[in-house]
């Protein structure tokens, strides 16, 4: 059966995606924000997250997983240290995180609140992102390091510039702006972008799926009911400190993970394979008539001009370079990131 690829022939999606890869793309990328304060804030966050938080310098940030007691990933977030005892957590699951914090607060001298409504965030991503932003900001950002956040100003609007992103671009920035200034900021970006052939990315599928997947990133659905050792997120885990899920994760580490998240490509464009990113179980993957995994995501790479995706498979069954059949289509197991 013929299934037209929903990405390949769509000029609008293609232009938004490639603007980020070739020039610069900007878009509303507001996440939920939880502010954590108090004398024990760092210690509290060290308990919640697998990576060290207390060692973060002011103005720096860290991507980390949050586990439950069984070592299942229940969130993956970026934690910013804004002051000695003030942190921001960028998440897409704030209500769950607040409940989780309530459950584990104990005697920690800490306070936390959802401040999502106070800020909007705009991503500015791509090779020309720095040049475009330097035209706008009061303080030049040439020296701003990756995964750092700093106060700045754009057209007298107080902002925080964060050098990071969900696209894999070396020059990627995020602008935190007071929510009431969002309209003004959009107009500023639209006007300033013209000089750089910038494009506003408007398609959810581009910002959440195609750009991040090319870079090998995970969107939360990809990680549900997995542990960090299965999905390649063990790097940077602080095994010297206590964190929720550590005991279970250590046991998994001893025996080795049972599954692994692998990348695959399919040259054939006009196909349809169910991925878990739409919800549901995802397409079953069989090897020698045995189900060895599920398709977690399948999108289109505009850079590679082929379908790309993830399979969560039984550990050790598949190797890089293997050719397998997924729902009647030939797929190749490949390294991540894809580009």
């Amino acid at each position, binding site marked *: 059966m013929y299934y*037209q690829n*929903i990405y390949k022939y769509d000029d609008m999606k293609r232009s938004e995606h490639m603007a980020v890869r070739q020039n610069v793309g900007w878009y509303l*990328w*507001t996440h939920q924000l939880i502010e954590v304060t108090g004398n024990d804030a760092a210690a509290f966050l060290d308990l919640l997250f697998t990576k060290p938080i207390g060692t973060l310098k002011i103005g720096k940030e860290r991507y980390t997983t949050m586990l439950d007691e069984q070592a299942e990933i229940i969130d993956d977030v970026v934690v910013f240290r804004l002051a000695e005892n003030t942190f921001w957590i960028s998440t897409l699951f704030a209500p769950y995180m607040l409940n989780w914090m309530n459950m584990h607060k104990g005697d920690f001298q800490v306070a936390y609140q959802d401040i999502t409504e106070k800020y909007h965030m705009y991503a500015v991503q791509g090779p020309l992102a720095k040049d475009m932003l330097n035209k706008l900001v009061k303080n030049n950002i040439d020296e701003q390091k990756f995964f750092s956040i700093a106060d700045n100003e754009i057209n007298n609007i107080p902002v925080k510039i964060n050098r990071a992103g969900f696209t894999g671009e070396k020059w990627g920035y995020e602008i935190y702006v007071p929510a009431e200034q969002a309209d003004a900021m959009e107009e500023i970006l639209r006007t300033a972008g013209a000089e750089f052939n910038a494009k506003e990315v408007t398609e*959810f599928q581009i910002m959440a799926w195609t750009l991040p997947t090319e870079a090998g990133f995970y969107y939360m*659905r990809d990680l549900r009911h997995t542990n960090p050792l299965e999905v390649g997120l063990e790097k940077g885990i602080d095994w010297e400190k206590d964190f929720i899920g550590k005991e279970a994760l250590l046991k998994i580490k001893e025996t080795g993970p049972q599954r692994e998240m692998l990348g695959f490509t399919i040259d054939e464009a006009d196909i349809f394979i169910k991925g878990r990113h739409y919800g549901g*179980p995802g397409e079953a993957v069989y090897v020698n008539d045995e189900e060895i995994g599920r398709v977690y995501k399948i999108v289109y790479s505009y850079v590679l001009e082929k379908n790309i995706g993830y399979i969560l498979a039984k550990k050790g069954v598949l190797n890089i370079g293997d050719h397998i059949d997924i729902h009647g289509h030939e797929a190749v197991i490949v390294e991540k990131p894809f580009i």
Partner: protein
Amino acid sequence: MSKKIDERLPKNSGQGVVTEYPAIRSPWGKLVSFQEAMHYVSRYDAVMSAVVMQAFRILLPDYEQRAQKMCVSAYNRLEQIQKMYGKYSMVEHNVHPFCRGNFVGALTGDSGDDALLMCGRVQDFGTYRAEKELDVCDWDIVGSDLCRATTQSLQACADVWATNLRPSKSHLEYHMVEAKGCGDLHCRIVAESREKYPMPPHQQWECFGPVATAEQIKFTPEEECIKESMVFREECDYTFANGTNWERDSSSVAMVRMTNAASGYIFPTMMELIQDGTLDEKFTDHVLHCLFEAAGKAAFGEAYAKKGLLQWLGVPAGIDDGRIMGGHIEMYLQALGCEYEIEAFNEKEVIYVIDRKALSFGFDKFVTAHVSYWYGMTKTLVNAQWSLWEESQDTPADKLRIKIAKKIDKFC
């Protein structure tokens, strides 16, 4: 007649001995699992909705007029509801703050489908286009005018949700381009941005396509269709999960108890037309009464239908009186989660006192419909000597007392 309860297993028989098992139970101890019970009540209500729709078709014969009225009613009602509760629902569905536009409304259609046992799959979900395909819909016997109205309820949810987000230049128009109620293999909603995919304007009831992106449709062949919601499938770990990571267990399908097609779409439209004078209430009641009696009689008019029910209820050999009808009603009420008390259950009479509100789905005409329906059933499930009627005297307003017994009625 003595209001006595004949020999039968007490409601709590076996409690504490057998590990608690979520099931409904017939008066003779036959257990029906939670899963089957939910399917049962879902289809039962769909059948009743089909009768209500036929009544509405008699009362308002013009298809276009009827469909338009239902669409407007559905849109307006859901718009009001979502203005009150939409924000909470968006939090449940993990709608991200960076989303803009009414495409996020597709999430509520997806979760609602699964909870209503209308299993299927999301085929596309983006700012400018969304597609959902269903393999099962218990409401597929009600009528295509209903299918149109359900599409407009989704449109309303989507439109209201969008108002809680940053503005977007994209506005999706939701169309049901295939409908099981029309004989298609699937129900299929395709939502398209009219800014990206222009199409000629149309009336609200014409939300059945055509669409501009028909070539992007992902059609699942019959051999790959599924029969159960995610919460009843092992491959889904018996959990509903959407693309934004909202997960729910099988208790979510109790949603089938909260609504049905008739209560949510047809009755409100009827009531609006009664209020504006288009329909006469007395005649409306008369039509409902006639159709439900006939539908009830038709349900067990053939011997095999009765035989099947006796087996399903586990009725002991030799029982052929009003208790069979009572068993039928009890199973439905249990599946619906509607409280009831047994005042009499013997070979001469059966009396129940039922929670009227829980039975009404918010429309008292539905209670009247049930009584007419069960009356008709009694005539064929037991025999014509038997009857079923409401006893309102000395019954609190919030209760429905029904009696099943022999009765001669020269004007029936």
